[in-house]
């Protein structure tokens, strides 16, 4: 009976040299044209993204501009109404109103003695 296990593949040195040509490695390189084309496409894509975003931003600017116009228009109308309200509540308007002309003359107030 053998007391020792002995690999049939031999020593480490032996197996290395035996398996070295199992896969064949070849160096593949892109040509200049392909690289230029890929680079160009990437630039194009980035450019498109930039253009899209810029257009989007400009659209927002237009929306903003419209909203600002609306706000200033509404504010101007609010101002007009405030002016109208002030005119209607002025003393002269109140004194010359129909309601005032139908009111009896005021009498001096009486005061109760404390």
């Amino acid at each position, binding site marked *: 009976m053998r007391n020792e296990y002995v690999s049939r593949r031999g020593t480490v040195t032996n197996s290395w040299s035996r398996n070295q040509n199992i896969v064949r490695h070849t160096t593949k390189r892109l040509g200049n044209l392909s690289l230029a084309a890929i680079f160009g496409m990437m630039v194009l894509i980035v450019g498109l993204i930039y253009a899209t975003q810029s257009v989007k931003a400009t659209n927002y600017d237009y929306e903003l501009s419209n909203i600002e116009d609306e706000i200033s228009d509404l504010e101007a109308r609010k*101002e*007009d109404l405030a*002016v109208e309200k002030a005119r209607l509540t002025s003393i002269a308007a109140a004194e010359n109103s129909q309601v005032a002309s139908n009111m009896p003359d005021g009498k001096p107030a009486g005061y109760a003695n404390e």
Partner: protein
Amino acid sequence: MKAREKVLKVGLTVAVVVILLQLFLIQIVQHDSWVKRAEDEHIVQSTIKAERGEIYMMDGDQPTLVVMNESSWTVVIDPMLVDAEELESTLSKIIPKDKMVAEFKDATADKTRRYYVLARGLKRDAAEKIKEAALVGVYLKEGNARVYPEGQMASSLLGFVNNDGKGQYGVEGALDKELAGEDGVLKTVTDVNNVALSIGDDNVRVPAKNGKNVVLSVDRNIQYRLEKYLKEQMDSSTATHAAGLVMNPQNGEVWALANLPTYDATNYANIEDASVFINEPLESAYEPGSMCKTFSFSAAIDQGKMTPQTTYNNSGYMTVDNWKIENAYKGQLGTITMQTGLDYSLNTSSMTALLWLGGDNNQITQAGKNILYKYYHDLFGFGEYTGIELFESPGVITEPDAADAYNSRYANMTFGQGMQITMMQLASAFSSVINGGEFYRPTVVAGEVAENGDFLYQDSPESIRTTVSTETSSTMRQMLYGTRAYKRTNGTDKAGYYIGGKTGTSQGIKDGAYTFDETVGNYIGFGGAEGEMPEYVIMVKIWGDGKKMEGEKDAMPIFDKMSEYMIDYLQIKPGGQN
């Protein structure tokens, strides 16, 4: 072949060098110039107009708007581009006549001009109609206009804003800086439609700081009523002008400041008589007349030289510097009290007070003049600005050491002639005489309305100085109350109220000399509950070119009505009935 290659190479090299040189020239040498041209093309810089602050008056204890802003449009045409016939036929139906600043024919006559203002102050509806008409060569310029919901009320107090947006006269002129605010700046990249774009590194936006919304201490109800009564008195007499003021004697707050005739501030450019712009109670110094006896008497009482019951001999006149200075009222001759002298407004009584101030019963002395000047100028503030927030005149008081400080001038000054002061100076000094002796700087500003609409009160005014003692003040109240004894008898002054006052009829000045052909009627007085301190001071003045107005006949009735109104308006309960 070789030669052709060479030519090609040289040609290409030259072309590249030319291009590089051109690039160098554009990008390096002319860099700034091209950047500027690009910016001019794409970047728009405009001013963000600050909104002018609005003006409020008090309405009881709440501020209410009396001067507001409203959008208005100016119509500008390019005479070279417009079709004159179409322009007139279209715009004459839209633009109100009073808004036109030029005739259609004049505006379109000179075809070489590129800019002509056709109309100003258009309202929104008219501007929208013009926009819809889309006429070639017609442009609309939006701006702001002031609006006065109370009409012509307090016009000389408020002033107006001219076409350049600058405040003129009154509150608008004096507080122009606070009301105007500060314009902002907007610098941004725009597209062909002039829409601001968010791209670009140089966008700048400095927001405008809107002007302050000023709240006046003037109460619109009191102002309206004062103007109404002044107008009624003018209509019932031959007077052509009247002015008045109402103030709180306990803190110097002005409640009304009126000047008649008023004017339409929206149409200021067409006013022919520029004197209507003058805020009479502050800007016009004049000889106030016998109301000044209040102050010469106060000085003598404060110096311990007299009481209301002190007597003197009224001969009807006094000779000073060889001038015979007479009483207007010829009665009450003989020995009379100073109270009687004040009741009948005798010039001899106030001149006697000056004699006593100088310590000599027979002649006016330098010491007497010095003391009178100290009271008039140093304590009552005559001849100096009161410090109110508006434009004012300092007036003129002759110093006792001046070459023209004649005894006769000082004798005249005891009854309000030979000196020039404003109504505001007089009313402020009068307030101190009857309020216990405290002089308050008059004010027309109560505070401001913040952007969020909150009313922020200004600090309550404090007394600047003491003019007379509390005892003198109390004595003067009694004396002034005494002058209205017959007003209580005939029922004008109601029981339970303590109302006092003094008339003043001052001579006009024609060609540098006093004349009796033209006189100014004045009255100043106070009122409140009996046993309490006065709550209001009212002063009125009425006059006209070549008209003889009197304090008692023409000015006092205005005070009487106004005093009654103030008692009701302030809800002053009658005192002294327990």
